[in-house]
């Protein structure tokens, strides 16, 4: 049982026997795990049909059913229908990658010109109450845990702001206990002093909590669904509030209802069948756009990466060509959405994809806790928290700015007002 997931399971010799036993039971005995469709107390339930529609469309999607002719028809058409998009994500589209890239480039230029936005993520805590088997922060992984205090948060922000960055994405591990909503709200208020544009990537919240964070100064919320395949989701998210698949699914909608200007979406590519996950991610965005046409929506495209204590984790069948196909299909289907490409990808890939369809690129990245000064200035690290995953592209803001300019793109540090 759960055999193909064995690659993720790592036992720490620091765990007490009882904890280890529970971990093994969760990994091997499905009956020991909770129902992923059952909400936990306090989790707000939305009356929204978007979940059901995404599930139905994803279940009906047969990537192998599309032919060469379907792909050619999709590329010849002015507007990209849902069916066209399915064709572009299918194996039949693989030989058309260059043509797709040309079309995607055209759409990107029409909607965004030659601009590329730069931002940096800031992890303020890495405590987590979930056991997501592929994630470095998972509660059974023996890593250095840290939570920055307000003074440390301000110091990190100052270091980042001094590097020139104007947009910050605040992240935490998913622990309501260690990183509660007021703590995150305070971090946002501090960020307002140093940055023009603030987003969060934290555990999903209720509408009133999103409203509170919006009032603190945050306007963008990113929540990755990880996988839209509920069977796989159940096997990979074994413990914690994150196990509740539908509560996570509706997070963006709750964020928009709470007054946020925009929301980010993604599957973590490599966890399940990428064709279906990529389709579901973009179809989710498509339906949210129809319901909340004013919202600024974006898609990311993270692939699995090695983590602390497990260097074997990899994105399986999602290579750079497949990733490029996914991103071009996203751009052609949803020409108006932002596309973010993170430092999980190499400098070469990011330079190339920024010219085709990415609109947002991170720079000066650390996925650890409290180590920006050390990383930016080369000073010795002290008392830092371990990283969520290994990054591939460690370019500084300055280098990224220059590389984007050299690629004929115009780096933009801010194009946003908090209203």
């Amino acid at each position, binding site marked *: 049982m759960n055999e193909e997931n064995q690659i993720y399971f790592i036992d720490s010799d620091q765990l007490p026997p009882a904890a280890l036993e529970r971990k093994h039971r969760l990994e091997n005995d499905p009956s020991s795990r909770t129902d992923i469709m059952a909400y936990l107390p306090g989790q707000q339930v939305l009356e929204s049909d978007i979940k059901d529609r995404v599930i139905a469309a994803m279940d009906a999607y047969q990537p192998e059913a599309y032919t060469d002719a379907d792909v050619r028809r999709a590329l010849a058409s002015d507007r990209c229908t849902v069916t066209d998009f399915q064709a572009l994500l299918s194996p039949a589209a693989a030989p058309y990658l260059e043509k797709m890239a040309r079309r995607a480039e055209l759409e990107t*230029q*029409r*909607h*965004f*010109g*030659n*601009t590329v936005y730069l931002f940096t993520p800031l992890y303020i805590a890495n405590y987590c109450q979930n056991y997501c088997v592929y994630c470095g922060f998972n509660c059974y992984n023996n890593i250095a845990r840290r939570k920055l205090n307000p003074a440390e948060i301000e110091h990190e922000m100052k270091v980042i702001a001094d590097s*020139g960055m*104007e947009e910050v994405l605040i992240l935490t591990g998913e622990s309501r206990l260690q990183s509660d909503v007021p703590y995150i709200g305070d971090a946002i208020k501090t960020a307002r002093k140093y940055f*023009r544009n603030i987003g969060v990537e934290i555990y999903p919240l209720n509408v009133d909590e999103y409203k509170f964070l919006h009032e603190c100064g945050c306007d963008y919320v990113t929540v990755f669904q990880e996988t839209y395949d509920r069977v796989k989701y159940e096997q990979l998210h074994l413990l914690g509030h994150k196990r509740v698949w539908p509560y996570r699914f509706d997070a963006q909608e709750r964020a928009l209802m709470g007054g946020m200007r925009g929301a980010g979406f993604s599957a973590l590519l490599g966890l399940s069948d990428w064709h279906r996950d990529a389709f579901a991610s973009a179809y989710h965005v498509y339906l949210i*756009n129809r319901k909340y*046409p*004013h*919202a*600024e*929506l974006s898609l990311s495209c993270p692939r699995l990466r090695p983590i602390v204590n497990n260097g074997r984790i990899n994105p399986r069948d999602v290579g750079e060509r497949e990733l490029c196909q996914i991103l071009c299909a996203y751009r052609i289907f949803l020409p*108006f959405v932002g596309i973010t490409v993170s430092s999980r990808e190499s400098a070469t890939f990011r330079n190339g994809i920024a010219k085709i369809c990415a609109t947002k690129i991170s720079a000066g990245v650390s996925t650890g806790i409290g180590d920006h000064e050390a990383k930016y200035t080369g000073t010795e690290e002290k008392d830092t928290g371990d990283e969520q995953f290994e990054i591939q592209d460690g370019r500084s803001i300055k280098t990224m700015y220059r590389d984007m300019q050299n690629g004929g793109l*115009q780096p*933009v*540090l*801010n*194009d*946003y*007002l908090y*209203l």
Partner: protein
Amino acid sequence: MQDVFKLGGHEFHSRFILGSGKYDLKLIKAAVEQGGAEIITLAVRRANTKQSESVLDYIPKGVTLLPNTSGARTADEAARIARLARAMGCGDFVKIEIMRDSKYLLPDNEETIKATEMLVKEGFIVLPYMYPDLYAARRLQEAGAAAVMPLAAPIGSNRGLETRAFIQILIDEIDLPIIVDAGIGKPSQACEAMEMGSAAIMANTAIATAGDVPAMAAAFKNAIEAGRTAYLAGLGRTLPRGASASDPLTGFLH
């Protein structure tokens, strides 16, 4: 006689306005030097930066800044952006852009009317970007707008005068300059809009995405001037068939 373009109590000689969608130094330089633009729009949100190459630094002296309220979703938000622009030293001009649609970026006429009413009272010279609807244009006129800026086609689409018939109605019925904004993809389309009697043309994407930006800016300048001259000259009759009868058909009448 010199043809002067009067807008909000100011006088201009160029009828080409550079939009703000796709900004860079090369484009602004081309628009001013080859396109003769005297008015350049500026997205306030884009100027809200510490960036070393701030958009504000790109704007040459002598050019009138037309700050826009892009990013606003309501009249109140547009008003706040307009006040911020004034505080930044951008002057009294403001182009109202209120979009509640992130896909097509179509303007919301209802909120735009509200914002126009508010900002005119605060002494702004208000130029509202709007969907070409006669009733909305009349209300904008009543609210004290300095011009009306109907869209020709969805912004960035380069599709040309898709709303031609409705823009013509505004030109015929509204006693304000009609500035055609958004969707103009070619100089010939700019020329046609000017022949119809538009007061000015705002363009951005068509020039920004051209193979040779300065040459395209010059082409727009020439096309806008040609269209304006044709409009002032009065377009000749286009006869459906045959030649014009030299003897009047109604010659028998006394």
